[in-house]
């Protein structure tokens, strides 16, 4: 694909991600109202363009009379932070295992690689569901579960790349100079993998946000009354026969955000990683 168009993707993606992050950081300034304030008199108001809608509640209100727009803006906090934290967790774990497996090979590699194979054969969602059910719902547990289930994808790529780099002259030279393994990995191998890892991680944020939303949608993630897109979609689903917008808007927020992140990640890949040595996307069970 022409490079220019890729850059356009990157620009659009950055803009969307920028707005989402801004919503998360400055929610109290941007939100028109209090996302927690209930008002029984204002229950289930329609959005502004429908009959009975008003600008006071531009996207209407939920069954407890809370302002939908404000809840969506505040919901960015949960999605963005869950996505970022889950990715940070799984990335550190996955990269570490990949470096060790690729660099030391032998038994370490056999153990790690087989473990990765098992993890990748797992229906990821069921695994995450079972783990959340075992640990109990909540933000912290959800991050742990997403982190513990998301690492193998990094390990697989980092291991393959490390295997290549460990035979390169500059690594052999470093070893000949007497540098320890930890130093070689940190100073000579890892810096060469940073671009690959950044691109992978940025695309993983989108996947983690969708997973977080789904867990919250099922009631296994963020607990009420904290506004989260997934939980709002779950609540809205009950009313889909009569008040479709309750499910439509939070879902649209998830969709637009993940689209922005994917565009951003795809664009980033072109800028940072011209030879596209990346993994084939989606080569794992979800």
């Amino acid at each position, binding site marked *: 694909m022409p490079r220019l168009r890729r850059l356009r993707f990157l620009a659009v993606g950055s803009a969307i991600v920028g707005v989402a992050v801004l919503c998360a950081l400055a929610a109290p300034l941007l939100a028109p109202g209090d996302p927690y304030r209930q008002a029984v008199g204002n229950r289930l108001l329609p959005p502004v363009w429908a009959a009975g809608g008003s600008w006071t509640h531009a996207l209407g209100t939920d069954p407890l009379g809370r302002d939908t727009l404000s809840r969506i803006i505040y919901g960015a906090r949960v999605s963005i932070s869950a996505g970022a934290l889950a990715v940070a967790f799984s990335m550190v774990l996955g990269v570490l295992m990949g470096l060790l497996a690729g660099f030391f090979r032998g038994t370490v590699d056999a153990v790690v690689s087989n473990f990765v194979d098992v993890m*990748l054969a797992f229906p990821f*969602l069921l695994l995450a569901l079972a783990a959340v059910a075992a640990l109990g719902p909540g933000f912290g547990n959800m991050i742990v579960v997403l982190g513990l289930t998301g690492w193998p994808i990094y390990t697989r790529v980092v291991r393959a790349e490390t295997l290549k780099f460990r035979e390169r002259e500059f690594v052999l030279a470093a070893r000949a100079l007497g540098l320890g393994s930890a130093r070689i990995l940190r100073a000579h191998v890892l810096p060469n993998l940073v671009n690959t890892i950044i691109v992978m991680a940025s695309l993983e944020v989108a996947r983690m946000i969708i997973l977080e939303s*789904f867990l919250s949608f099922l009631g296994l993630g963020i607990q009420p009354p904290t506004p989260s897109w997934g939980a709002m979609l779950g609540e809205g689903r009950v009313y889909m026969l009569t008040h*479709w917008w309750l499910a439509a808007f939070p879902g649209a927020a*998830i969709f637009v955000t993940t689209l922005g992140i994917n565009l951003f990640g795809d664009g980033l890949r072109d800028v940072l990683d011209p030879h596209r040595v990346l993994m084939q996307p989606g080569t794992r069970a979800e």
Partner: protein
Amino acid sequence: MWTFVVHRLVRAVFVCLGISLITFTLLHVVGDPVLLLVPQSASDADVRLLKEKLGLDRPLWAQYAVFLRDAVRGDFGESLFTQESALVLILERMPATLELTFAGMAVGLLIAIPLGVVSAIRRGSLTDRLCTVGAVTGQAMPIFWLGIMLIIVFAVQLRVLPASGRGTLAHLVLPAITLGAYLAPLTMRLTRSGMLDVLTQDYIRTARAKGVGERVLLFKHALRNAAIPIVTILGVQFGRLLGGAVVTETVFAWPGVASLAVKAINTYDYPVVQGAVVLLAFLIVLANLLADIAVTWLDPRVRLDEDHA
């Protein structure tokens, strides 16, 4: 060829063992089933009694050994609530899950493969660009939202299709589209890049140079070779598809294994959860194994390499 198949089989058995171990660890070490089963007011003696009854007072390795022994015989225990065999409960729902999975796969492939091939042939054209934009958009779509939107439009507003349940062909339409839409974008992109790889090969150029017609070139020379990456993708995608089925079944109240598992997770019916997770994972392993074997059959290079290795 046979060394290869045996090698893969051994590997598959190993992966299945690993899966059972992880599932068991999650449900028995991370979580404590008994504490969730008894009311908070239960005395320590009651808790102990229940543990003994369920065999949960024995050392973990012994519990795992029993679990493994029974699992090999197809015995995953009984549902803690209905006292029915977990395996029977799961198998009863397996046809629904398979029906949905294959329908979703059919929809996904019918969209993805023709579009992928066309965009590879007309690389850079408007069609190609539209397909790429469609694929990028589709990949970002949370399918539980897509499913709900489809219900709102086709079941609630237009009233042309049922919103949930299983029975007639009409019930299958919306879930199959939802699942197909989950599968299609990635498959399309992978088909496109697989096809592009083939189209830039020397033998295609040679064939074209000696005057082979475009149609023959495409169907006989290119597509046949592009089938290899596509089959590999299918095996790998089966896992994603089952994951998508978890979501789709929940949204459409489709009576399959995945919705059974989600229900069992909510009630902490661990024998059912255990059985469903393990059996679904086995299915994925089986699909990957079949794809591997199919690829060796399609591509003599793989089997020759393996035999010499």
